């Protein structure tokens, strides 16, 4: 998992994705490759993924719009 091909493609390592959850609610995340975001529905937050690196900090997450 250290040698992450996602650095080139911007994708999240699938093995990492399998064990990632929302840090606040521990809920399963949805991966939106087009926006490069990991979405936690219960927390209404979208965690950014920068160069394939998920930033799992609520402070840096985007609050979901009401219609999202």
């Amino acid at each position, binding site marked *: *998992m*250290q040698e*992450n091909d996602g*650095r080139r493609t911007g994708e999240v*390592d699938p*093995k*990492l994705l399998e*064990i*990632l*959850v*929302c*840090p*606040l609610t*521990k809920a399963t995340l949805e991966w939106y490759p087009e926006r490069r975001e990991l979405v936690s529905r219960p927390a209404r937050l979208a*965690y950014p993924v*920068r*160069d394939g*690196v*998920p*930033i*799992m*900090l*609520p*402070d840096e997450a985007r609050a979901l719009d009401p219609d999202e």
Partner: protein
Amino acid sequence: MTPVIFDRSLLARRRARALAERKPGADFLLTLVADDLADRLAAVDRRFSRALVIGDPTGLLAARIAAGRVDEVVRADLLVSGLDGGGALVLDDEALPFVGGAFDLVVSSLALQFANDLPGALIEARRVLKPDGLFLGVLAGGDTLTELRQAFLQAESRRSGGASPRVAPMAEVRDLGGLLQRAGFALPVADQDRLTLRYSSALALMDDLKAMGASSVLADRRRGLTGPALMAEVAAIYQEMFGDPDGRVRASLSLVSLSGWAPHESQQKPLRPGSAKMRLADALKMPPRTEDD
């Protein structure tokens, strides 16, 4: 509600700045702790399938752990991305973003001294471990920076007749074993290594702390700049109280090492009180008491 001791977003900014500046030699403590943790892990006769490494901005610790009996290492950066592209993700060790039981080894390096909720952070480490998984951690504690605390206290009370918080409160090794147990770890162990660092002056020590991203992040700190006059007084008091004959000054550092296992059937555990099937006297082969005794 946990009291907020540390301003964690300020900590993130301090770490980001320290990593951007990358002062040569500022990583000596990370290297020391990486060696210590790798040695401790080498003494454990086990193979681990997936390890989480927290607080490794240089990547050295993950490399050392990966060189041992560990199949896969997830290097996680604390609050800000690390050097050379950083780790696999960025996280907050007080709220880990992993499913329960995702790892069989969790290693935390110089991160827990900044936790607002230390028991909570230990519970999080325990949660992401499989049964019989191992937690290893090193944090600054005990009398770390006690000299700087005393010098600030004296200088501020002399100048303004009061003192403000300058040096973070440190966890004591005697409390940490109990905290590990409360967090649900079996076979908890906490011990400390006391080091003395030497600097040309208190100002050089503070420069080094800044380069490590470890200058004060106390939530209740005094806002605004600390004036040069106060800093000069701190340095003079420090020199007077903790100076060596060669003109250099001493700084204490206590590195507290923690280890604990996620509970599992196979581990040794004490029997329930009253469950003994044999008398202690028989076990000790003591002669039976007689009327003359």
